[in-house]
């Protein structure tokens, strides 16, 4: 079995977001770029499956749609343990564009399991994984918190409102993963970092596809009223304010 892990390159989660060019783009100066947290976990899970000889997983490939500036993120994925990488050399303009490119990669290379995160921490689209599956006409299971392979058959647990469901599906399919998929992201060891330098990164030119959406402006979240402090000796006043001022209880 071959697994494809889709990785997105995002600002470190503690980044203070600032805007540039009249609020039409993000000011990237000083930003530390990392693998999207979900994708780091899905890569970890894919590698755990590969380590387990009974799973039948033979290789883990990562794919990224982005420009040369995201090379360090790809190298990091290789250092963590991916066997090889594919980069579609294009600006990741919107989910539709990205998913169409990855679907094209998947058509050429034939993977059994494609894994995406439930959302990227920059665009918060929750869209790429589902779009890839529809472009390929294969099933997708979303909000997956556990992915196992038992007797050659994929078994997933997905989160539903107020519960969990165990879902069976035939490969090939797309798993859209969330919390629980792996405990801690795997960290690159020295050996991995050395080996990553020699691992292949295949460069592909993008299909000519028009994005369907475009961000024209960014705004900061609406500022909130300053905090009103209540005396620690009189917490009852808080309940009074919540009842009579905020009117939320």
């Amino acid at each position, binding site marked *: 079995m071959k697994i494809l892990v889709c990785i997105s390159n995002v600002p470190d989660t503690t980044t203070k*977001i600032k805007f540039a060019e009249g609020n039409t783009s993000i000011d990237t100066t000083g930003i530390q770029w990392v693998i999207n947290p979900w994708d780091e976990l899905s890569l970890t899970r894919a590698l755990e499956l590969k380590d387990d000889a009974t799973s039948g997983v033979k290789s883990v490939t990562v794919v990224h749609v982005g420009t040369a500036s995201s090379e360090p993120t790809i190298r990091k994925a290789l250092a963590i343990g991916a066997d090889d990488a594919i980069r579609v050399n294009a600006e990741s303009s919107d989910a539709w564009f990205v998913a169409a490119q990855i679907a094209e990669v998947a058509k050429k290379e034939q993977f059994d399991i494609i894994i995406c995160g439930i959302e990227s921490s920059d665009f918060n689209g929750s869209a790429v994984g589902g779009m890839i599956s*529809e472009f390929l006409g294969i099933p997708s299971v979303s909000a997956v918190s556990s992915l196992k392979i038992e007797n050659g058959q994929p078994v997933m647990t997905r989160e539903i*409102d*107020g519960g*969990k*469901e165990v879902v069976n599906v035939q490969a090939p399919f797309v798993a859209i993963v969330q*919390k629980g998929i792996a405990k801690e992201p795997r960290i690159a060891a020295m050996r991995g970092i050395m080996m990553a330098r020699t691992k292949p990164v295949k460069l592909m030119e993008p299909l000519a596809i028009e994005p369907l959406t*475009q*961000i024209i402006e960014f705004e900061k*979240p609406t500022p909130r009223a300053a905090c009103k402090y209540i005396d620690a000796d009189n917490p009852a006043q808080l309940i009074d304010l919540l009842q009579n001022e905020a009117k939320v209880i």
Partner: protein
Amino acid sequence: MSVLVYTENWEGKFKKLSFELVSYASGVAKMLNTTVTAVSIGKVEDNELKRLGNCGANKIINIINDQLITLDNQAYASVISDISKKENATVIIISNNNTGKAIAPRLSVRLKAGVGSGVSRLPLNINPFTVYKRTYSGNAFAHLVIKSDVKILTLAQNSFDLIETANNASIENLNVSVDGSLVKTSVKDVQKQSGKILLTDADIVVSGGRGMKSPDNWPPLVELATLLGAATACSRPVSDEGWRPHEEHTGQTGKIIAPNLYIAVGISGATQHLAGISSSKFIVAINSDKDAPIFQAAQYGIVGDAMKIIPKLVSAVKEIRK
């Protein structure tokens, strides 16, 4: 032309979010000078369906089909896209919950429709069609232009007030045939949490962090939540430590919630935590450190020891509930 809204039901009942969706759809339809068609899949009582009408649906399509009892993303997307074509829908509105996130992108590819996910507020403009959407995990909001003829919006929960007035919508029971070859997933087992207020449904959430010190200190916090009709939540280290169940973890890598009131007890307010709760209408912070970043996000704060404060809050709530 019409606005189509998919209203999910849970064992035959709608939730507040279903009605919010229809109210939102009705707002969008007014901007476009058109009508709202609501689609419901699965057995739902007529009086529940009528309430969709009261929230602004002009027409309700009710689908019952045995192949659609559990969610198969592909089959659901196929059924909803067929109806949206029949209804000549130009805007399709779905919740930004797990189900919506599973269906919307598949629908997008079927209809070549751009997706605006996690929108709040009505569209900023209809020409070009521009929505207001969460990005950078709540640290920025984008004006997103959707250029395709058909647009799909997933609405953030608790971001639009539901408006209800008596209205007589038509209800159409529709038989659809589902191409069996599209149903490729099967559900083997279901585990439901019972009796608890679900975190994603709750209007009020009481949440504890590492400042609670030990799982043994939770009972007063749970009592406060019960008195307020609130759900309980926690920060990531708390669920990682196994002090509280994983379903309660809120934040960037946990649940993203938007209750009316979020009470954070012994939580420092790391950006990754705020990413999951920053859309709450009101945030209360209770923390012994006056410089904890959570106070910057909060509208009400108490600087002090949670162990002493929570029991006093419990008594105060009991007092007003007398």
